[in-house]
Protein backbone atom coordinates (compact mmCIF):
# COMPACT_ATOMS: atom_id res chain seq x y z
CA UNK A 1 0.00 0.00 0.00
CA UNK A 2 2.52 2.55 -1.13
CA UNK A 3 -0.09 5.23 -1.79
CA UNK A 4 -1.11 5.58 1.84
CA UNK A 5 0.52 7.79 4.39
CA UNK A 6 1.41 6.42 7.78
CA UNK A 7 -1.67 6.26 9.96
CA UNK A 8 -0.65 9.15 12.17
CA UNK A 9 -2.57 8.51 15.36
CA UNK A 10 -0.85 11.52 16.83
CA UNK A 11 -2.34 13.69 14.08
CA UNK A 12 -5.47 15.26 15.51
CA UNK A 13 -6.87 15.88 12.02
CA UNK A 14 -6.81 12.13 11.36
CA UNK A 15 -8.28 11.38 14.77
CA UNK A 16 -11.14 13.77 14.13
CA UNK A 17 -11.88 12.01 10.85
CA UNK A 18 -11.81 8.55 12.43
CA UNK A 19 -14.10 9.74 15.16
CA UNK A 20 -16.60 10.94 12.57
CA UNK A 21 -16.55 7.57 10.78
CA UNK A 22 -17.24 5.85 14.08
CA UNK A 23 -20.03 8.28 14.85
CA UNK A 24 -21.59 7.43 11.52
CA UNK A 25 -21.38 3.70 12.28
CA UNK A 26 -23.06 4.26 15.63
CA UNK A 27 -25.90 6.28 14.13
CA UNK A 28 -26.55 3.70 11.41
CA UNK A 29 -26.64 0.83 13.91
CA UNK A 30 -29.07 2.90 15.99
CA UNK A 31 -31.14 3.57 12.84
CA UNK A 32 -30.88 7.28 13.60
CA UNK A 33 -31.21 8.27 9.96
CA UNK A 34 -31.87 11.94 10.61
CA UNK A 35 -28.69 12.15 12.66
CA UNK A 36 -26.88 10.27 9.90
CA UNK A 37 -28.10 12.61 7.17
CA UNK A 38 -26.80 15.61 9.11
CA UNK A 39 -23.25 14.24 8.91
CA UNK A 40 -23.04 14.95 5.17
CA UNK A 41 -22.12 18.12 3.33
CA UNK A 42 -24.63 19.51 0.84
CA UNK A 43 -22.70 18.34 -2.17
CA UNK A 44 -21.64 15.00 -0.72
CA UNK A 45 -22.19 11.73 -2.54
CA UNK A 46 -22.96 8.44 -0.82
CA UNK A 47 -22.17 5.54 -3.14
CA UNK A 48 -22.39 1.74 -3.00
CA UNK A 49 -20.97 0.67 -6.37
CA UNK A 50 -21.44 -2.69 -8.07
CA UNK A 51 -18.28 -2.64 -10.20
CA UNK A 52 -15.43 -3.12 -7.71
CA UNK A 53 -12.88 -1.42 -9.93
CA UNK A 54 -14.50 1.77 -11.12
CA UNK A 55 -14.29 5.28 -9.77
CA UNK A 56 -16.64 6.54 -12.44
CA UNK A 57 -19.83 5.97 -10.51
CA UNK A 58 -21.88 8.38 -12.56
CA UNK A 59 -21.77 6.31 -15.72
CA UNK A 60 -22.13 2.91 -14.03
CA UNK A 61 -24.95 1.16 -12.29
CA UNK A 62 -24.67 1.38 -8.50
CA UNK A 63 -26.61 -0.04 -5.60
CA UNK A 64 -26.70 3.44 -4.11
CA UNK A 65 -25.77 6.71 -5.78
CA UNK A 66 -27.18 9.38 -3.51
CA UNK A 67 -26.80 13.08 -3.75
CA UNK A 68 -28.44 15.37 -1.20
CA UNK A 69 -31.90 14.98 -2.76
CA UNK A 70 -31.74 11.19 -2.84
CA UNK A 71 -30.38 11.04 0.72
CA UNK A 72 -33.33 13.15 1.85
CA UNK A 73 -35.77 10.82 0.07
CA UNK A 74 -33.98 7.80 1.50
CA UNK A 75 -34.19 9.10 5.04
CA UNK A 76 -37.88 9.79 4.54
CA UNK A 77 -38.37 6.29 3.24
CA UNK A 78 -36.49 4.76 6.15
CA UNK A 79 -38.42 6.75 8.76
CA UNK A 80 -41.94 7.30 7.47
CA UNK A 81 -43.20 3.78 8.25
CA UNK A 82 -44.57 2.91 4.80
CA UNK A 83 -41.70 0.76 3.58
CA UNK A 84 -42.22 -2.81 4.82
CA UNK A 85 -38.51 -3.59 4.52
CA UNK A 86 -37.51 -0.53 6.55
CA UNK A 87 -40.14 -1.22 9.20
CA UNK A 88 -38.84 -4.79 9.56
CA UNK A 89 -35.18 -3.89 9.03
CA UNK A 90 -32.53 -6.21 10.41
CA UNK A 91 -30.66 -5.21 13.55
CA UNK A 92 -27.04 -4.48 12.85
CA UNK A 93 -23.74 -4.21 14.67
CA UNK A 94 -20.85 -2.95 12.63
CA UNK A 95 -17.14 -2.65 13.27
CA UNK A 96 -15.07 -0.17 11.29
CA UNK A 97 -11.32 -0.47 11.63
CA UNK A 98 -8.03 -1.01 9.74
CA UNK A 99 -7.85 2.67 8.84
CA UNK A 100 -5.34 3.99 6.36
CA UNK A 101 -4.90 7.61 5.44
CA UNK A 102 -4.93 8.45 1.77
CA UNK A 103 -4.85 12.20 2.10
CA UNK A 104 -4.53 14.68 4.95
CA UNK A 105 -4.57 18.46 5.13
CA UNK A 106 -6.03 21.06 7.48
CA UNK A 107 -9.33 20.93 5.54
CA UNK A 108 -9.62 17.43 4.11
CA UNK A 109 -8.83 13.93 5.30
CA UNK A 110 -9.45 10.88 3.13
CA UNK A 111 -9.58 7.61 5.01
CA UNK A 112 -9.88 4.04 3.89
CA UNK A 113 -11.15 1.41 6.27
CA UNK A 114 -12.61 -2.06 6.56
CA UNK A 115 -16.11 -2.66 7.79
CA UNK A 116 -17.65 -5.88 9.09
CA UNK A 117 -21.38 -5.51 9.45
CA UNK A 118 -23.31 -8.20 11.29
CA UNK A 119 -27.04 -8.32 10.80
CA UNK A 120 -29.82 -10.34 12.30
CA UNK A 121 -33.37 -10.72 11.09
CA UNK A 122 -35.89 -13.54 11.42
CA UNK A 123 -33.48 -16.16 12.69
CA UNK A 124 -30.89 -15.33 10.06
CA UNK A 125 -27.48 -13.89 10.77
CA UNK A 126 -25.59 -12.35 7.89
CA UNK A 127 -22.21 -10.70 7.54
CA UNK A 128 -21.49 -7.99 5.03
CA UNK A 129 -17.86 -7.14 4.39
CA UNK A 130 -16.97 -3.80 2.85
CA UNK A 131 -14.08 -1.52 2.05
CA UNK A 132 -14.98 2.05 2.93
CA UNK A 133 -13.59 5.31 1.64
CA UNK A 134 -14.53 8.50 3.46
CA UNK A 135 -13.55 11.99 2.45
CA UNK A 136 -14.03 14.19 5.47
CA UNK A 137 -14.09 17.98 5.38
CA UNK A 138 -12.67 19.49 8.54
CA UNK A 139 -14.05 22.75 9.75
CA UNK A 140 -14.34 24.64 13.04
CA UNK A 141 -18.13 24.53 12.54
CA UNK A 142 -18.06 20.75 12.58
CA UNK A 143 -16.48 18.05 10.47
CA UNK A 144 -18.61 16.53 7.73
CA UNK A 145 -18.57 13.68 5.24
CA UNK A 146 -18.08 14.88 1.67
CA UNK A 147 -17.88 11.44 0.08
CA UNK A 148 -18.53 7.91 1.20
CA UNK A 149 -17.94 4.92 -1.04
CA UNK A 150 -18.80 1.52 0.39
CA UNK A 151 -17.41 -1.31 -1.72
CA UNK A 152 -19.05 -4.57 -0.70
CA UNK A 153 -16.81 -7.57 -1.20
CA UNK A 154 -19.70 -9.39 -2.89
CA UNK A 155 -20.99 -6.39 -4.82
CA UNK A 156 -21.17 -8.28 -8.13
CA UNK A 157 -23.06 -11.19 -6.64
CA UNK A 158 -26.35 -11.54 -4.87
CA UNK A 159 -26.49 -9.04 -2.01
CA UNK A 160 -29.25 -9.18 0.58
CA UNK A 161 -29.63 -5.86 2.32
CA UNK A 162 -32.60 -6.53 4.62
CA UNK A 163 -33.54 -2.90 4.93
CA UNK A 164 -30.42 -1.40 6.52
CA UNK A 165 -27.73 0.92 5.18
CA UNK A 166 -24.07 0.08 4.77
Amino acid at each position, binding site marked *: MSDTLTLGLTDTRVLRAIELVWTEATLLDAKDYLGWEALYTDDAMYV*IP*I*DPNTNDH*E*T*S*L*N*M*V*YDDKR*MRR*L*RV*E*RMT*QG*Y*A*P*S*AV*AAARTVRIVSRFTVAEVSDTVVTLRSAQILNSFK*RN*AFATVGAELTHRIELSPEGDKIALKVARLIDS*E*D*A*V*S*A*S*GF*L*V
Partner: protein
Amino acid sequence: MTSIETAAPRFGDLAAGDRVAGQLYTDPEIFAEEMKKIFYRTWVWVAHESEIPEAGSFKTTQVGDQPVIVTRDRKNTFNTLLNRCRHRGATVCDQRTGKANGFTCPYHNWSYTLDGRLRGIPYPDGYEGVVDKNDYPLQKLRTESYLGMIWATFNADAEPLEDFLGDAKLWMERFLKQSNGHPTKVLGSHKFRFRGNWKIQLENTTDGYHFPMVHKSWMASVDAETANMMSFMDDPAAETHALGNGHSVAIMAASHADLDIDDGTEEIQPRFQHLVDELVAAGEPMDRVRRYMRSMHGCGFNLNMFPNVAMSSSFFRILVPISVDVTEVWHMAIGMDGGPESINRERLRIHEHFQGPFGFGSPDDAEGWDRVQIGAGGNPTMPILVNRGEGRERISDEGWPTAHVTDETGMRESYSMWKKMMSDV
Protein backbone atom coordinates in the same frame (compact mmCIF):
# COMPACT_ATOMS: atom_id res chain seq x y z
CA MET B 1 -48.03 -54.87 -6.60
CA THR B 2 -47.31 -51.16 -6.56
CA SER B 3 -44.83 -50.17 -9.17
CA ILE B 4 -42.56 -47.18 -8.67
CA GLU B 5 -44.41 -45.38 -11.47
CA THR B 6 -47.86 -45.57 -9.90
CA ALA B 7 -46.45 -44.57 -6.52
CA ALA B 8 -44.91 -41.40 -7.96
CA PRO B 9 -46.61 -38.34 -6.51
CA ARG B 10 -48.91 -36.49 -8.88
CA PHE B 11 -47.65 -32.99 -8.20
CA GLY B 12 -49.61 -31.55 -11.11
CA ASP B 13 -52.79 -32.14 -9.10
CA LEU B 14 -51.63 -29.58 -6.53
CA ALA B 15 -52.42 -26.71 -8.92
CA ALA B 16 -56.02 -26.17 -9.94
CA GLY B 17 -56.82 -23.10 -11.99
CA ASP B 18 -57.43 -20.46 -9.37
CA ARG B 19 -55.55 -21.98 -6.44
CA VAL B 20 -52.33 -23.86 -5.72
CA ALA B 21 -51.21 -25.71 -2.61
CA GLY B 22 -48.74 -23.87 -0.35
CA GLN B 23 -46.65 -27.03 -0.63
CA LEU B 24 -45.57 -25.79 -4.07
CA TYR B 25 -43.26 -23.36 -2.28
CA THR B 26 -41.95 -25.64 0.45
CA ASP B 27 -41.58 -29.23 -0.75
CA PRO B 28 -38.01 -30.08 -1.86
CA GLU B 29 -39.33 -33.03 -3.89
CA ILE B 30 -41.47 -30.69 -5.93
CA PHE B 31 -38.45 -28.47 -6.53
CA ALA B 32 -36.42 -31.44 -7.78
CA GLU B 33 -39.29 -32.45 -10.06
CA GLU B 34 -39.58 -28.86 -11.39
CA MET B 35 -35.94 -28.92 -12.38
CA LYS B 36 -36.51 -32.08 -14.42
CA LYS B 37 -39.91 -31.35 -15.88
CA ILE B 38 -39.67 -27.61 -16.38
CA PHE B 39 -36.14 -26.22 -16.26
CA TYR B 40 -34.46 -29.07 -18.18
CA ARG B 41 -37.31 -29.38 -20.66
CA THR B 42 -38.30 -25.90 -21.78
CA TRP B 43 -36.49 -22.83 -23.03
CA VAL B 44 -34.67 -21.04 -20.21
CA TRP B 45 -33.39 -17.51 -20.77
CA VAL B 46 -29.60 -17.28 -20.39
CA ALA B 47 -28.32 -13.96 -21.75
CA HIS B 48 -28.85 -10.82 -23.74
CA GLU B 49 -26.59 -10.60 -26.78
CA SER B 50 -25.09 -7.31 -25.56
CA GLU B 51 -23.65 -9.13 -22.55
CA ILE B 52 -21.54 -11.22 -24.92
CA PRO B 53 -20.55 -8.48 -27.33
CA GLU B 54 -17.79 -10.01 -29.47
CA ALA B 55 -16.18 -13.26 -30.55
CA GLY B 56 -14.63 -14.84 -27.45
CA SER B 57 -16.97 -13.10 -25.00
CA PHE B 58 -18.68 -15.33 -22.50
CA LYS B 59 -20.96 -15.26 -19.48
CA THR B 60 -21.61 -17.90 -16.83
CA THR B 61 -25.08 -18.55 -15.47
CA GLN B 62 -27.45 -21.42 -14.71
CA VAL B 63 -30.12 -23.38 -16.50
CA GLY B 64 -32.27 -24.51 -13.61
CA ASP B 65 -29.72 -25.55 -11.01
CA GLN B 66 -27.01 -26.49 -13.51
CA PRO B 67 -24.00 -24.27 -14.26
CA VAL B 68 -23.54 -23.20 -17.88
CA ILE B 69 -21.33 -20.93 -19.96
CA VAL B 70 -22.84 -18.88 -22.77
CA THR B 71 -20.24 -18.05 -25.41
CA ARG B 72 -19.94 -16.24 -28.69
CA ASP B 73 -17.57 -18.21 -30.90
CA ARG B 74 -15.39 -17.12 -33.84
CA LYS B 75 -18.32 -17.51 -36.23
CA ASN B 76 -20.41 -15.25 -33.97
CA THR B 77 -22.61 -18.19 -33.05
CA PHE B 78 -23.98 -18.35 -29.52
CA ASN B 79 -23.33 -21.55 -27.61
CA THR B 80 -24.56 -22.69 -24.23
CA LEU B 81 -22.18 -25.22 -22.69
CA LEU B 82 -22.55 -27.19 -19.50
CA ASN B 83 -19.84 -25.84 -17.20
CA ARG B 84 -18.54 -29.29 -16.35
CA CYS B 85 -15.28 -30.81 -17.48
CA ARG B 86 -15.65 -34.14 -19.26
CA HIS B 87 -12.71 -35.56 -17.32
CA ARG B 88 -13.69 -35.54 -13.69
CA GLY B 89 -16.35 -32.87 -13.60
CA ALA B 90 -14.69 -29.62 -12.45
CA THR B 91 -16.15 -26.35 -13.67
CA VAL B 92 -14.00 -25.09 -16.50
CA CYS B 93 -14.81 -21.41 -15.96
CA ASP B 94 -15.62 -19.48 -12.80
CA GLN B 95 -15.67 -15.89 -14.02
CA ARG B 96 -19.03 -14.13 -14.39
CA THR B 97 -18.11 -12.60 -17.72
CA GLY B 98 -15.00 -12.16 -19.77
CA LYS B 99 -13.16 -12.86 -22.98
CA ALA B 100 -11.28 -16.03 -23.75
CA ASN B 101 -9.91 -18.13 -26.58
CA GLY B 102 -11.38 -21.20 -24.93
CA PHE B 103 -11.58 -22.83 -21.53
CA THR B 104 -8.88 -24.82 -19.80
CA CYS B 105 -9.96 -26.88 -16.84
CA PRO B 106 -7.71 -25.97 -13.91
CA TYR B 107 -7.64 -29.52 -12.52
CA HIS B 108 -5.76 -31.53 -15.19
CA ASN B 109 -5.78 -28.90 -17.93
CA TRP B 110 -8.10 -30.46 -20.48
CA SER B 111 -8.90 -27.59 -22.81
CA TYR B 112 -12.01 -26.76 -24.79
CA THR B 113 -12.90 -24.41 -27.64
CA LEU B 114 -15.52 -21.65 -27.44
CA ASP B 115 -18.05 -24.02 -29.00
CA GLY B 116 -17.18 -26.79 -26.56
CA ARG B 117 -14.94 -29.13 -28.56
CA LEU B 118 -12.21 -30.89 -26.58
CA ARG B 119 -9.06 -29.35 -28.00
CA GLY B 120 -6.25 -30.70 -25.89
CA ILE B 121 -5.34 -33.27 -23.25
CA PRO B 122 -1.97 -32.92 -21.49
CA TYR B 123 0.30 -35.99 -21.50
CA PRO B 124 -2.00 -37.76 -23.93
CA ASP B 125 -0.11 -41.04 -24.10
CA GLY B 126 -2.13 -42.49 -21.22
CA TYR B 127 -5.24 -42.00 -23.31
CA GLU B 128 -4.01 -43.62 -26.49
CA GLY B 129 -6.62 -46.06 -27.66
CA VAL B 130 -8.77 -45.02 -24.70
CA VAL B 131 -10.11 -41.56 -25.43
CA ASP B 132 -10.99 -40.06 -28.79
CA LYS B 133 -11.19 -36.31 -28.30
CA ASN B 134 -14.19 -36.11 -30.62
CA ASP B 135 -16.21 -38.12 -28.10
CA TYR B 136 -15.76 -35.72 -25.19
CA PRO B 137 -16.89 -32.20 -25.95
CA LEU B 138 -18.53 -30.09 -23.24
CA GLN B 139 -22.24 -30.90 -23.21
CA LYS B 140 -23.98 -28.41 -25.46
CA LEU B 141 -27.51 -27.12 -24.99
CA ARG B 142 -29.75 -26.07 -27.85
CA THR B 143 -29.43 -22.29 -28.07
CA GLU B 144 -31.66 -19.87 -29.97
CA SER B 145 -32.19 -16.15 -29.76
CA TYR B 146 -34.97 -13.79 -30.63
CA LEU B 147 -34.60 -9.99 -30.73
CA GLY B 148 -31.27 -10.25 -28.92
CA MET B 149 -32.60 -12.39 -26.08
CA ILE B 150 -30.89 -15.79 -25.86
CA TRP B 151 -32.55 -18.91 -24.53
CA ALA B 152 -31.14 -22.42 -24.08
CA THR B 153 -32.60 -25.83 -23.42
CA PHE B 154 -31.36 -29.30 -22.53
CA ASN B 155 -34.29 -30.66 -24.51
CA ALA B 156 -33.33 -31.71 -28.03
CA ASP B 157 -37.02 -32.09 -28.89
CA ALA B 158 -38.21 -28.72 -27.64
CA GLU B 159 -40.36 -26.75 -30.07
CA PRO B 160 -38.57 -23.88 -31.84
CA LEU B 161 -38.00 -20.92 -29.53
CA GLU B 162 -40.23 -18.62 -31.56
CA ASP B 163 -43.13 -21.07 -31.33
CA PHE B 164 -42.65 -21.26 -27.58
CA LEU B 165 -42.64 -17.47 -27.25
CA GLY B 166 -45.79 -17.24 -29.38
CA ASP B 167 -47.84 -14.14 -28.57
CA ALA B 168 -45.14 -12.88 -26.19
CA LYS B 169 -43.14 -11.90 -29.28
CA LEU B 170 -45.37 -8.96 -30.09
CA TRP B 171 -44.82 -7.61 -26.58
CA MET B 172 -41.08 -8.18 -26.77
CA GLU B 173 -41.04 -6.00 -29.86
CA ARG B 174 -43.03 -3.29 -28.11
CA PHE B 175 -40.81 -3.50 -25.06
CA LEU B 176 -37.66 -2.97 -27.07
CA LYS B 177 -39.05 0.23 -28.58
CA GLN B 178 -37.73 1.99 -25.49
CA SER B 179 -34.30 1.83 -27.15
CA ASN B 180 -35.63 4.39 -29.65
CA GLY B 181 -34.30 2.58 -32.70
CA HIS B 182 -30.85 1.91 -31.22
CA PRO B 183 -29.79 -1.60 -30.24
CA THR B 184 -30.64 -2.47 -26.66
CA LYS B 185 -27.71 -2.83 -24.29
CA VAL B 186 -27.49 -4.22 -20.76
CA LEU B 187 -25.95 -1.43 -18.66
CA GLY B 188 -25.54 -3.35 -15.41
CA SER B 189 -27.22 -5.81 -13.09
CA HIS B 190 -28.60 -5.71 -9.59
CA LYS B 191 -28.56 -9.13 -7.97
CA PHE B 192 -30.16 -10.14 -4.74
CA ARG B 193 -31.54 -13.22 -3.04
CA PHE B 194 -34.64 -13.80 -1.02
CA ARG B 195 -35.50 -16.73 1.16
CA GLY B 196 -38.43 -18.04 -0.81
CA ASN B 197 -39.49 -20.20 -3.71
CA TRP B 198 -38.98 -19.07 -7.32
CA LYS B 199 -42.71 -19.13 -8.10
CA ILE B 200 -43.34 -16.40 -5.52
CA GLN B 201 -41.23 -14.17 -7.74
CA LEU B 202 -42.80 -15.54 -10.92
CA GLU B 203 -46.21 -14.45 -9.62
CA ASN B 204 -45.04 -10.99 -8.68
CA THR B 205 -44.15 -9.72 -12.14
CA THR B 206 -47.74 -9.46 -13.32
CA ASP B 207 -49.20 -8.73 -9.88
CA GLY B 208 -50.48 -5.16 -10.12
CA TYR B 209 -52.50 -5.66 -6.95
CA HIS B 210 -49.53 -5.31 -4.57
CA PHE B 211 -48.11 -2.17 -6.11
CA PRO B 212 -49.83 0.70 -4.28
CA MET B 213 -49.55 -1.07 -0.95
CA VAL B 214 -46.00 -2.41 -1.05
CA HIS B 215 -44.52 0.49 -3.01
CA LYS B 216 -46.13 3.33 -1.11
CA SER B 217 -42.75 4.63 -0.02
CA TRP B 218 -41.44 4.62 -3.60
CA MET B 219 -44.60 6.38 -4.80
CA ALA B 220 -44.04 9.03 -2.14
CA SER B 221 -40.49 9.58 -3.33
CA VAL B 222 -41.15 10.21 -7.03
CA ASP B 223 -42.52 13.30 -8.71
CA ALA B 224 -46.27 13.74 -9.20
CA GLU B 225 -46.16 12.91 -12.91
CA THR B 226 -44.43 9.58 -12.32
CA ALA B 227 -46.75 8.72 -9.45
CA ASN B 228 -49.70 9.59 -11.66
CA MET B 229 -48.40 7.34 -14.42
CA MET B 230 -48.31 4.44 -11.96
CA SER B 231 -51.79 5.11 -10.53
CA PHE B 232 -53.48 2.29 -12.39
CA MET B 233 -55.74 0.92 -9.70
CA ASP B 234 -58.86 2.54 -11.11
CA ASP B 235 -57.71 2.75 -14.72
CA PRO B 236 -59.85 0.43 -16.87
CA ALA B 237 -57.25 0.56 -19.67
CA ALA B 238 -54.77 -1.12 -17.32
CA GLU B 239 -55.18 -4.81 -18.11
CA THR B 240 -53.46 -8.14 -17.82
CA HIS B 241 -53.50 -10.58 -20.72
CA ALA B 242 -52.72 -14.28 -20.54
CA LEU B 243 -50.63 -14.96 -23.65
CA GLY B 244 -50.39 -18.76 -23.58
CA ASN B 245 -47.48 -21.12 -22.72
CA GLY B 246 -47.36 -19.57 -19.23
CA HIS B 247 -46.57 -16.07 -20.54
CA SER B 248 -48.54 -12.98 -19.54
CA VAL B 249 -48.40 -9.22 -19.76
CA ALA B 250 -49.58 -6.66 -17.19
CA ILE B 251 -50.13 -3.18 -18.60
CA MET B 252 -49.74 -0.52 -15.93
CA ALA B 253 -49.44 2.58 -18.09
CA ALA B 254 -51.41 1.94 -21.26
CA SER B 255 -50.20 5.22 -22.78
CA HIS B 256 -46.66 3.79 -22.83
CA ALA B 257 -47.49 0.30 -24.08
CA ASP B 258 -46.51 1.25 -27.62
CA LEU B 259 -44.03 4.11 -27.59
CA ASP B 260 -44.62 4.73 -31.30
CA ILE B 261 -48.06 5.99 -30.36
CA ASP B 262 -48.09 9.37 -28.61
CA ASP B 263 -51.36 11.26 -28.25
CA GLY B 264 -49.41 14.31 -27.10
CA THR B 265 -51.22 14.69 -23.78
CA GLU B 266 -48.45 13.41 -21.53
CA GLU B 267 -46.48 15.99 -19.57
CA ILE B 268 -42.75 15.43 -19.49
CA GLN B 269 -41.53 15.39 -15.89
CA PRO B 270 -40.01 18.77 -14.96
CA ARG B 271 -37.02 17.02 -13.40
CA PHE B 272 -35.95 15.94 -16.89
CA GLN B 273 -35.92 19.55 -18.12
CA HIS B 274 -32.13 19.75 -17.97
CA LEU B 275 -31.97 16.82 -20.39
CA VAL B 276 -34.54 18.35 -22.70
CA ASP B 277 -32.49 21.56 -22.76
CA GLU B 278 -29.29 19.66 -23.38
CA LEU B 279 -30.73 17.64 -26.28
CA VAL B 280 -32.44 20.61 -27.89
CA ALA B 281 -29.19 22.57 -27.64
CA ALA B 282 -27.44 19.65 -29.32
CA GLY B 283 -29.85 19.98 -32.23
CA GLU B 284 -32.18 17.04 -31.55
CA PRO B 285 -35.63 17.74 -33.01
CA MET B 286 -38.36 18.16 -30.40
CA ASP B 287 -40.38 15.09 -31.39
CA ARG B 288 -37.27 12.97 -31.01
CA VAL B 289 -36.53 14.54 -27.61
CA ARG B 290 -40.08 13.83 -26.53
CA ARG B 291 -39.71 10.22 -27.62
CA TYR B 292 -36.48 9.87 -25.60
CA MET B 293 -38.14 11.35 -22.54
CA ARG B 294 -41.20 9.13 -22.78
CA SER B 295 -38.98 6.06 -23.11
CA MET B 296 -37.11 6.96 -19.93
CA HIS B 297 -39.43 4.90 -17.72
CA GLY B 298 -39.52 2.04 -20.15
CA CYS B 299 -42.69 0.58 -21.54
CA GLY B 300 -45.62 0.78 -19.21
CA PHE B 301 -45.96 -2.98 -18.92
CA ASN B 302 -44.42 -6.09 -17.43
CA LEU B 303 -44.07 -9.07 -19.76
CA ASN B 304 -43.58 -12.34 -17.93
CA MET B 305 -42.07 -15.18 -19.94
CA PHE B 306 -42.34 -18.59 -18.32
CA PRO B 307 -40.32 -19.81 -16.49
CA ASN B 308 -37.48 -17.42 -15.69
CA VAL B 309 -37.39 -14.08 -17.49
CA ALA B 310 -39.44 -10.92 -17.58
CA MET B 311 -39.21 -7.71 -19.53
CA SER B 312 -40.31 -5.41 -16.82
CA SER B 313 -40.93 -1.71 -17.37
CA SER B 314 -37.34 -0.69 -18.15
CA PHE B 315 -35.24 -3.72 -17.24
CA PHE B 316 -34.95 -7.48 -17.60
CA ARG B 317 -35.85 -9.50 -14.55
CA ILE B 318 -34.24 -12.91 -14.29
CA LEU B 319 -35.02 -15.45 -11.66
CA VAL B 320 -32.58 -18.20 -10.78
CA PRO B 321 -33.93 -21.03 -8.65
CA ILE B 322 -31.27 -21.90 -6.05
CA SER B 323 -33.23 -24.31 -3.85
CA VAL B 324 -36.85 -24.83 -2.84
CA ASP B 325 -36.66 -21.84 -0.50
CA VAL B 326 -33.94 -19.62 -1.97
CA THR B 327 -34.23 -17.65 -5.20
CA GLU B 328 -31.85 -15.23 -6.82
CA VAL B 329 -33.25 -12.27 -8.75
CA TRP B 330 -31.31 -10.23 -11.30
CA HIS B 331 -32.58 -6.86 -12.40
CA MET B 332 -30.67 -5.91 -15.53
CA ALA B 333 -30.77 -2.23 -16.38
CA ILE B 334 -31.04 -1.64 -20.09
CA GLY B 335 -30.23 1.33 -22.24
CA MET B 336 -29.35 2.33 -25.76
CA ASP B 337 -26.24 1.23 -27.58
CA GLY B 338 -25.79 4.64 -29.18
CA GLY B 339 -27.80 7.82 -28.82
CA PRO B 340 -27.27 10.49 -26.17
CA GLU B 341 -25.22 9.18 -23.24
CA SER B 342 -27.10 11.42 -20.83
CA ILE B 343 -30.26 9.42 -21.46
CA ASN B 344 -28.53 6.21 -20.44
CA ARG B 345 -27.16 7.92 -17.34
CA GLU B 346 -30.64 9.07 -16.35
CA ARG B 347 -31.96 5.56 -16.94
CA LEU B 348 -29.31 4.25 -14.53
CA ARG B 349 -30.46 6.70 -11.87
CA ILE B 350 -34.11 5.69 -12.33
CA HIS B 351 -33.12 2.05 -12.10
CA GLU B 352 -31.08 2.64 -8.94
CA HIS B 353 -34.03 4.44 -7.39
CA PHE B 354 -36.31 1.38 -7.47
CA GLN B 355 -34.18 -1.72 -8.00
CA GLY B 356 -31.41 -3.49 -6.23
CA PRO B 357 -30.78 -4.46 -2.64
CA PHE B 358 -30.82 -0.82 -1.51
CA GLY B 359 -33.46 0.48 -3.90
CA PHE B 360 -36.73 2.07 -2.85
CA GLY B 361 -38.81 -0.79 -4.28
CA SER B 362 -37.24 -4.23 -4.48
CA PRO B 363 -36.46 -4.66 -0.78
CA ASP B 364 -40.14 -4.07 -0.04
CA ASP B 365 -41.14 -6.76 -2.53
CA ALA B 366 -38.61 -9.11 -0.98
CA GLU B 367 -40.08 -8.45 2.46
CA GLY B 368 -43.42 -9.76 1.21
CA TRP B 369 -41.86 -12.76 -0.51
CA ASP B 370 -39.89 -13.81 2.61
CA ARG B 371 -43.12 -13.77 4.56
CA VAL B 372 -45.01 -15.80 1.96
CA GLN B 373 -42.39 -18.51 2.27
CA ILE B 374 -42.64 -18.65 6.05
CA GLY B 375 -46.42 -18.34 6.11
CA ALA B 376 -46.97 -20.93 3.40
CA GLY B 377 -45.12 -23.43 5.61
CA GLY B 378 -48.06 -23.16 7.99
CA ASN B 379 -50.43 -25.83 6.70
CA PRO B 380 -48.74 -26.42 3.35
CA THR B 381 -51.85 -28.08 1.92
CA MET B 382 -53.95 -24.93 2.40
CA PRO B 383 -54.42 -23.25 -0.98
CA ILE B 384 -52.71 -20.07 -2.17
CA LEU B 385 -55.42 -18.06 -3.94
CA VAL B 386 -54.89 -16.72 -7.42
CA ASN B 387 -58.57 -16.13 -8.14
CA ARG B 388 -58.75 -12.33 -8.12
CA GLY B 389 -60.74 -11.05 -11.08
CA GLU B 390 -62.03 -14.44 -12.23
CA GLY B 391 -65.52 -13.01 -12.40
CA ARG B 392 -64.50 -10.21 -14.75
CA GLU B 393 -62.14 -12.13 -16.99
CA ARG B 394 -63.05 -11.99 -20.68
CA ILE B 395 -61.42 -12.96 -23.95
CA SER B 396 -59.83 -10.04 -25.80
CA ASP B 397 -60.12 -9.56 -29.57
CA GLU B 398 -56.72 -11.22 -29.88
CA GLY B 399 -58.06 -14.26 -28.06
CA TRP B 400 -56.24 -13.60 -24.79
CA PRO B 401 -57.93 -14.17 -21.41
CA THR B 402 -57.97 -10.63 -20.06
CA ALA B 403 -58.85 -8.89 -16.83
CA HIS B 404 -57.80 -5.80 -14.88
CA VAL B 405 -54.09 -5.28 -14.17
CA THR B 406 -54.74 -5.93 -10.49
CA ASP B 407 -56.29 -9.31 -11.28
CA GLU B 408 -54.48 -12.63 -11.06
CA THR B 409 -54.90 -13.62 -14.70
CA GLY B 410 -51.11 -13.77 -15.26
CA MET B 411 -50.60 -16.09 -12.30
CA ARG B 412 -53.37 -18.39 -13.47
CA GLU B 413 -51.62 -18.56 -16.85
CA SER B 414 -48.27 -19.42 -15.21
CA TYR B 415 -49.80 -22.10 -13.04
CA SER B 416 -51.71 -23.68 -15.88
CA MET B 417 -48.39 -24.07 -17.73
CA TRP B 418 -46.79 -25.35 -14.52
CA LYS B 419 -49.59 -27.89 -14.13
CA LYS B 420 -49.32 -29.00 -17.74
CA MET B 421 -45.57 -29.52 -17.55
CA MET B 422 -45.60 -31.14 -14.12
CA SER B 423 -48.38 -33.55 -15.21
CA ASP B 424 -46.35 -34.82 -18.16
CA VAL B 425 -44.76 -38.18 -17.56
